[in-house]
């Protein structure tokens, strides 16, 4: 494909403008074919990530520790916004990273904790015991990951946590139909393109 020409332009319509800005990224589009023996960029990046993967175990350990510390602070500091946000971010990071680090079964438990924190209407109503159970589950799944039945146990544990969490959230949000729709609807696939 030939690089695009610079087509910076503004067209004005009744209630909007269509702006074609100068294409500053055009400089990176190349029509040169790949050289013989040249590696595909995705394969090259995957290889670089594989080389980094020796560190993933210790990263996972530190992320679990961060979640545990955030839980302790949340319980100790009386559910203020700062400690709640720190707990949410720690769980949310684990949800996003666990699969990349090679521990996909941890992500679902972390996701359930995120839902519990995000959809509980009042910070003071976040149930401490259920938070503890989620954090302990995340740590246990990570710790026992080498067991042959680890994934099955993780799925059972997470499923139970999620059921209890949903039951609590549906009750807490009984007067908020828009939130209820999100809680129930979030079980369906997202629209994010694969």
């Amino acid at each position, binding site marked *: 494909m030939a690089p695009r020409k610079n087509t910076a332009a503004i067209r004005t319509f009744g209630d909007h403008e269509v702006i074609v800005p100068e294409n500053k990224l055009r400089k990176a589009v190349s029509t040169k074919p790949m050289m013989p023996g040249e590696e595909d960029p995705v394969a090259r990046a995957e290889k670089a990530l594989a080389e*980094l993967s020796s560190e993933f175990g210790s990263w996972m350990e530190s992320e679990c520790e961060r979640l545990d510390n955030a839980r302790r602070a949340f319980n100790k500091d009386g559910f203020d916004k700062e400690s709640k946000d720190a707990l949410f971010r720690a769980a949310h990071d684990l949800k996003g990273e666990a699969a990349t680090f090679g521990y996909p079964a941890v992500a679902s438990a972390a996701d359930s904790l995120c839902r519990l924190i995000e959809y509980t209407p009042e910070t003071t109503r976040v149930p401490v015991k259920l938070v503890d159970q989620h954090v302990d589950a995340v740590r246990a799944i990570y710790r026992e990951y080498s067991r042959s039945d680890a994934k099955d146990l993780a799925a059972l544990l997470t499923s139970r946590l999620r059921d209890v969490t949903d039951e609590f959230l549906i009750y807490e949000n009984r007067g908020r139909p828009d939130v209820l729709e999100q809680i129930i609807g979030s079980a369906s696939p997202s629209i994010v393109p694969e």
Partner: protein
Amino acid sequence: MVRIDFNRLRFLVIDDNAHMRRILRTLLHGFGAREVYEAEDGAAGLEAFTHHVPDIVITDWAMPIFDGLELMQMIRQPGANANPYVSIIMLTGHSEKKRVTAARDAGVTEFLAKPISAKGLYERLVNVIANPRPFIKTKTYFGPDRRRNVNPTYAGPERRKGGKADVIRQAPLLEKVRAPG
């Protein structure tokens, strides 16, 4: 097949998690990028954006101080910075429809849900670089055209008003000064 010279582009990665920044840097270097800058929260990200003037911003959503969505709203201000048209990829664990819609309405160029993969990131980058979309400016929105394609089965009313804009002709100041009375 489109081929991208990543070494001709400057990237800014904004994520409060050092591990995720390292993974993104590794992937971008793997693609061939050389210039990859990092920031650890929204405020530092805005400062780095102003300082380094990146070609592509990859940002997390959940961050302290101000989050990725707020950062994007600050960047997408025509005339307020060097490049309000910069390509922004939102990389986040939030994948719910409500979140994706909010990111789209704040002017995101591409949305990529975690867990990250080399293929997923590469595809978003190629799309951003090789298929740039025009920007739309209205009273309530400034960002890439949210209509990615024409839906031939759409039967509702056209929400954008076409035709020429109403132009109220203003006499040049010099003419006003010269005008008698």
